[in-house]
């Protein structure tokens, strides 16, 4: 089947060109050109725009390897990406399952809307709302103290958990949507067939449902992991001083220190690392999918 599609697209390439052209033109202008400029900058000593003399150098890249700080921050960001992705799986997958297989009709539409709602609100507004919830004397603190008979102090603001909460909230809809699509494609009669053969719900999940929805899990994980590793807004606002990650350091180079060449170099190192991780993971994931 894949062979047929490939040969079909080759012969139809000429007629498909007018359809492809706008997208590729846009990608060239909007992504390729700025990125090329950034590659160029990353090999410079100074930003040419500043009017100072500049020269080509590899120093921006060697800085990453000579200073342990960057490596430590990159590892912290990768760990953050992994943790957020896992939380999104644990929270998003069951929700997607219920949406795809349990709910029907109006109630499905309503719950679906609630899942997509975060997409429709401004990211910054979302993060500041969390700040109001998580800080001492904030909504969570007040609410819990109103319910519980004893006094507790909840101040999650400017902590690692706050960063995780904010990021999971921002990215869990991706996992729900990608998993929903693959779960919905699983015919209900497969589940019934498995049950008629004596499989428990857990066995069905392990041997049929998870394997068949693996493409959705992988797509969701990739959509979440990559941007979270480079994220800076949530760590900065919700993490405060503890929220220093690889992404915030890159942001600093661009907006605070004005060391664009170093910022660009750090970005490309991140890009390379992420690509290597995805390449290493792809055979495993493809086999699972």
């Amino acid at each position, binding site marked *: 089947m894949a062979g047929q599609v490939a040969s079909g697209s080759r012969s139809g390439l000429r007629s498909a060109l007018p359809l492809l052209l706008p997208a590729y033109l846009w990608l060239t202008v909007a992504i390729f050109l700025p990125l090329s400029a950034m590659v160029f900058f990353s090999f410079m000593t100074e930003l040419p725009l500043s009017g100072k003399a500049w020269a080509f150098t590899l120093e921006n890249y060697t800085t990453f390897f000579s200073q342990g700080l960057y490596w430590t921050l990159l590892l912290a960001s990768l760990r953050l990406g992994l943790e957020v992705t896992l939380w999104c799986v644990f929270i998003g997958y069951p929700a997607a399952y219920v949406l795809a297989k349990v709910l029907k009709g109006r109630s499905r539409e309503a719950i679906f809307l609630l899942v997509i709602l975060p997409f429709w609100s401004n990211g910054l507004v979302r993060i500041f709302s969390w700040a109001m919830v998580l800080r001492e004397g904030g909504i969570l603190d007040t609410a819990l103290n109103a319910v519980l008979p004893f006094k507790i102090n909840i101040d999650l603001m400017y902590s690692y958990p706050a960063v995780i909460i904010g990021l999971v909230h921002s990215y869990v809809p991706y996992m729900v949507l990608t998993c929903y699509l693959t779960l919905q494609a699983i*015919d209900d*009669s*497969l589940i*019934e*067939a*498995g*049950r*008629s*053969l*004596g*499989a*428990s719900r857990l*066995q069905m999940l392990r*041997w*049929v449902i998870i*394997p*068949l929805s693996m493409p959705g899990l992988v797509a969701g994980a990739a959509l979440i992991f990559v941007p979270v590793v480079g994220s800076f807004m949530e760590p900065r606002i919700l993490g405060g001083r503890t929220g220093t990650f690889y992404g915030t350091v890159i942001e600093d180079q661009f907006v605070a220190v004005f060391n664009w060449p170093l910022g660009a170099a750090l970005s490309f190192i991140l890009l390379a690392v992420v690509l290597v991780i995805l390449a290493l993971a792809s055979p495993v994931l493809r086999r699972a999918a």
Partner: protein
Amino acid sequence: MAGVQVSNLSRSFGAHKALDDVSIDFADGGFYALLGPSGSGKTTLLRQIAGFDFPDSGRIAIGGESVERVPVEKRRIGMVFQNYALFPNMSVADNVAFGLSVRGEAKAIIASEVQRALDLVQLGKLGGRRPHQLSGGQRQRVALARAIVTKPRVLLLDEPLGALDKALRVDMQIELKRIQREIGITTIFVTHDQEEALTMSDRIGILRDGRLVQEGPPEEIYDRPKSEFAATFLGDANILRGDTTGTGIRLVDGTAIAAGAGATLAAGAKASCAVRPERIRIATDSGTSDPNANVLRGQISKRIFAGNNSTYFVERDGQTLKVIVQNTGIERLAEGQEVVLRWSPESTVLIAAN
């Protein structure tokens, strides 16, 4: 292996009565067809027996053990679905092995049982294939092998041949029957195809609007239908309506029709007589050899030639009667011809008006 008893089973979905007080005894080792139009409740009944859905009231027993509140995974049944429902992420062998693996059987036992089941459905060499590499008929066989490899107490088939083309369907009917005989498993088969029900099953249950209309061996239902619905749904039938005389009916124009079988009715009540199209003899003359025969006159409005037989549509008193005549090369009647229809009372079934 075990028989299945369904007693007074009812199930409603909202205001809709999907099953209404249905009782059937499925004998151990028998091949039973549940026949009915769509919405008749036949699939609902099968799903109740399988355990996908629980009844509102009534009892289901498999091998004498009450199971109506036992979930499907604990009922030890085998089921074949209309769309086969093979697991696309597994090989054919793994599909067949599934029921044994989830039970935690030893690998060596699983391998030999799977091979035996695949041999039984004549797919012994295709264990390594994926379901999408198989034809419709082969998938059907895999689904059957997967359902029987666990040695279930009952085999449930939900329109299993519905997705196959005609020639393949006939092959599979024979094949299915052979396998069922070979392992001797109680089999309940849902279909809307009356021919399939007639040729394959030991007994047929006809359902309509959630009720069991009639139940019995195919010959009995065909020869002695108890309702107009049973008469017309299983095979073709001419229905004549009138007032009963006790042993037959009198039509509106006064003609008497004698019936040799069927219900015993009080004289004067509304009733019908059913007669199969192939039981009626058609001729141009009125000369008769049998003085007891039922006789009606009419005019041929249409003739359909089908090679080995011809179907005549005969207009009589505003009603069209259907007559099927074997092609013996002698009688060739033309449209528009006046004819005499004759059939014996033994071929006539008296049915209470519904």
